[in-house]
């Protein structure tokens, strides 16, 4: 359990973290409006509890764990199954894109494909492969075993590879 430390103003750090927080929130909510609401609630909670942040380690890890916990609470409150997050990660259908599309459309399609990935896959991928968190940190943030982190990560990579063929063309 964290020990209380001298209170510090983390608002500036939070503002700097906003783009990353929104991205991580999107991997959980798959909806921009929900993601922004979640980020705002997380920031309010983090500021109110900033005296609990001991200044050691990565601030992101503490914030992400808080964000993920708030999302779990929110899902429980809604008492509904949210998107495809309740589908087993390995059973989700594959997607393909048209490689001849213009770059902006391509980016939009990529974005929607990423968003359609099961929650468990994209959040693990972002934490490990993009932001460089260790398997242990990722497991702690998401509240899952390390073995699950590893299997989801591998599945995420294979699914992403299947979305776009190596030469940039459409999936076969």
């Amino acid at each position, binding site marked *: 359990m964290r020990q209380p430390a001298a209170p510090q103003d983390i608002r500036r750090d939070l503002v700097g973290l906003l783009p990353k927080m929104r991205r991580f929130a999107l991997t959980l909510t798959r909806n921009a409006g929900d993601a922004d609401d979640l980020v705002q609630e997380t920031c309010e909670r983090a500021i109110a509890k900033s005296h609990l942040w001991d200044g050691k380690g990565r601030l992101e890890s503490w914030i992400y764990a808080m964000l993920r916990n708030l999302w779990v609470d929110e899902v429980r409150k809604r008492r509904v199954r949210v998107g495809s997050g309740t589908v087993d990660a390995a059973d989700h259908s594959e997607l393909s894109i048209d490689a001849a599309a213009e770059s902006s459309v391509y980016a939009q399609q990529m974005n929607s494909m990423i968003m359609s990935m099961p929650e468990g896959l994209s959040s693990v991928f*972002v934490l490990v492969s993009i932001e460089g968190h260790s398997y242990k940190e990722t497991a702690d943030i998401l509240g899952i075993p390390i073995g699950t982190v590893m299997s989801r990560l591998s599945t995420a990579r*294979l699914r992403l590879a299947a979305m776009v063929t190596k030469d940039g063309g459409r999936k076969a």
Partner: protein
Amino acid sequence: MEDLRNHPLDVRLSALLDREIDDKEREELERLIATDDDARALYERLKHGSDVGRKAFNDMLKEPVPLALVRSIRNAQPPKEPSRLARFSPPKIDLVPTGKQALAASILLFFLGGGIGYLIGINPAAPPPPLEADPHGSTWLDEIAAYHRVYARQQRHLVEVPASEADHIVKWLTNSVGVGFKLPDLSASGLEFQGARLLVAGGKPVGQLIYKSMDGDIVAICFQRDAAPSAQESDRFEEVIRDDLGMVTWHGSQAYYVLVGPSAEANLPGLARQASADI
């Protein structure tokens, strides 16, 4: 480190990409990739998936963050004190006085009250104590913010005296406000000096130096003579938000300063430090 021997090959190769394996496992997998075509193809697919995902997720960071979200964070009030844990609670002390203690306290208060009454009696013309200990409290800042909102919208009459009369501005405001100063050069931060105004806030004159960014944002440095600034506060910069405006305050040797600009401007504290060094 997780024992990988019981995991499928794709999971083990994925862990190899992340360097989350021990040396023995790494050597074994590298040997397998070098000799087994299927393992090599699988490893390449995993690497390709990483590259595709990295590009797509990094593109998400380019999307602009809603300004309302930034403001809501900057306006949020941090807790003033950490919560106290139960084990740090002070021991309970029985404060009910005994009869002798009550008598002694009554006598002490009698003489103390008499002494204060005597001191007031011999100096009846003394002014009443000020209602607000800090003359540069929130009301003063509110007045500065209100001025800024009005003047920053002025197109033709943004300033009272234009920047072309820089020497006059320095003499005029030095005499009017009672604070010596130099005009800070904020051009390195993209701010061009426009001119100055003389304001009144808290019943005292305030000098206002006005700057404009290339985007048309207005940033002003306001200063008011401060009779007795404490040495402890002289290096302290404090940032407050007034809705759409951000304000950074600090004390100088003879004045109280505030830099005011749009709250969305992230570098207001940096500008305040630069102004503090130059002014």
